């Protein structure tokens, strides 16, 4: 492997599993190029090395990141997350989003929010929000409006059932085209779901049986391939029709 220096390509670790400490890029060989680093990579003088174990991915032309699935969440800008209100301060709600720090949700960050109509969220309220400020050091900040100020489905989620998953499963559920398990379930049952990239999923349907069935199907689909997910969903649906 370390014989011929000229033939060493920069990206021979792409799509392979890397562990912390592996050096994936040598910046001295790449001049006048801009590289974007996603999660799991850091710059160490002239090298880019790995911080978290996972699969190294490259999105052409120049974005590298390490894909890994964790039980905790690292906040990134413009992610949509499900948070649980922990406390109500005078000008923010403190919200838990499974991150190293509690997130702040300003009381005015709602559509048409003024000092007079501050929403009354008690401890334990489930909120669907968007991350608007996330650097590693300060508490992340959320907002319940989209970029133009409209509500756009953000806000409190009432009724339904929330369960926790890994961040990898949440990303798979939000991938496009539609995740096979959601498609297979959606053909037979009508339900609504909200997926937070921080590893929380909320499901609501007309009857508790449907909610349980959809939640179980989603939890089981984490490591299955597309066809396996469809088969699993169909088996679960059959059982419900029979009983």
């Amino acid at each position, binding site marked *: 492997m370390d014989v011929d220096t000229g033939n060493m390509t920069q990206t021979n670790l792409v799509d392979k*599993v890397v*562990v912390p400490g592996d050096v994936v890029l040598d910046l001295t060989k790449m001049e006048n190029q801009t590289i974007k680093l996603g999660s799991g990579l850091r710059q160490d003088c002239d090298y880019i090395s790995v911080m978290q*174990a996972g699969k190294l991915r490259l999105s052409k032309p120049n974005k590298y990141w390490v894909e890994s699935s964790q039980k905790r969440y690292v906040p990134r800008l413009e992610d949509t997350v499900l948070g649980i209100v922990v406390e109500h301060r005078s000008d923010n709600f403190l919200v838990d989003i499974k991150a190293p*720090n509690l997130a702040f949700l300003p009381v005015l960050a709602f559509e048409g929010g003024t000092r007079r109509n501050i929403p009354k969220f008690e401890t334990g309220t489930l909120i669907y929000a968007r991350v608007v400020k996330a650097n*590693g050091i300060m508490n992340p900040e959320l907002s319940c409006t989209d970029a133009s100020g409209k509500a756009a489905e953000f806000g409190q989620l009432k009724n339904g059932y929330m369960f926790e998953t890994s961040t990898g499963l949440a990303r798979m559920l939000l991938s496009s085209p539609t995740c096979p398990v959601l498609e297979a379930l959606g053909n037979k049952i009508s339900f609504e779901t909200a997926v937070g990239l921080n590893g929380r999923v909320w499901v609501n349907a007309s009857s508790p049986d449907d909610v349980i069935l959809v939640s179980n199907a989603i939890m089981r689909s984490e490591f*299955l391939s597309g066809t396996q997910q469809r088969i699993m969903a169909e088996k679960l649906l059959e059982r419900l029709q029979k009983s």
Partner: protein
Amino acid sequence: MEDRTDGRNANQLRPLGCSRTILNRAHGSARWSQGNTIVLAAVYGPKAGTKKGENPEKASFEVIWKPKTGQIGKQEREYEMILKRTLQSICLVNVHPNTTTSVIVQVVGDDGSLLPCAINASCAALVDAGIPMKHLAVSISCGLMEEGSIILDLTKSEEEKLKAFAYLVFPNSPLSVIDKVHSSKEEPIEHGIITSVSYGAMPVSGYFDCLERGRAASAAISEFLRRSLQKQSSEDASRAAQ
């Protein structure tokens, strides 16, 4: 005196075993076994806030060591301190300042080389939890026999009989796209040492022999750890198909 009680030769390690993500509620967990020495490590965090006396500009680590039987005493506190210092030096503490990560180590079986086994288990558990790290740590025990020969991976009976032995922790050997030719001016990273705990009196030459043998063996453990991390991600696909 070349025969060891379990029939291994001087450089042979006991069978290694590693499984990760075994605890449901922990954010990261791993079980590491070397022969009959088995240790279970669980990682919770990072969580907000640091304890009093810890630097709030860095992430802090908290280690709790649970022995198999008996009360917690000085030996456990010593292990906690060694483990904490080792983990602090391999993790990137500037990524999440003002947070605390807790590592709980539970001894399931003790047949010698307990501290190295615990360090390997904690490192695997930290990787499972996604804590940012500079590199992995690989740990091994080396004993010095009377005539000066070194044996690796000691059992409990060997530790009791030997005059002197040491627990050593090395960084793992990284995969790199950098040409080895260029970087041969500096020492490769696996020639460093992270932690060394020695028991008994040994001559300086004996200690350096231990370091060399330990370093050579750590390459094998490092390869095993890498393979088990790679296998886990493809094994998950077949594991949950029930």
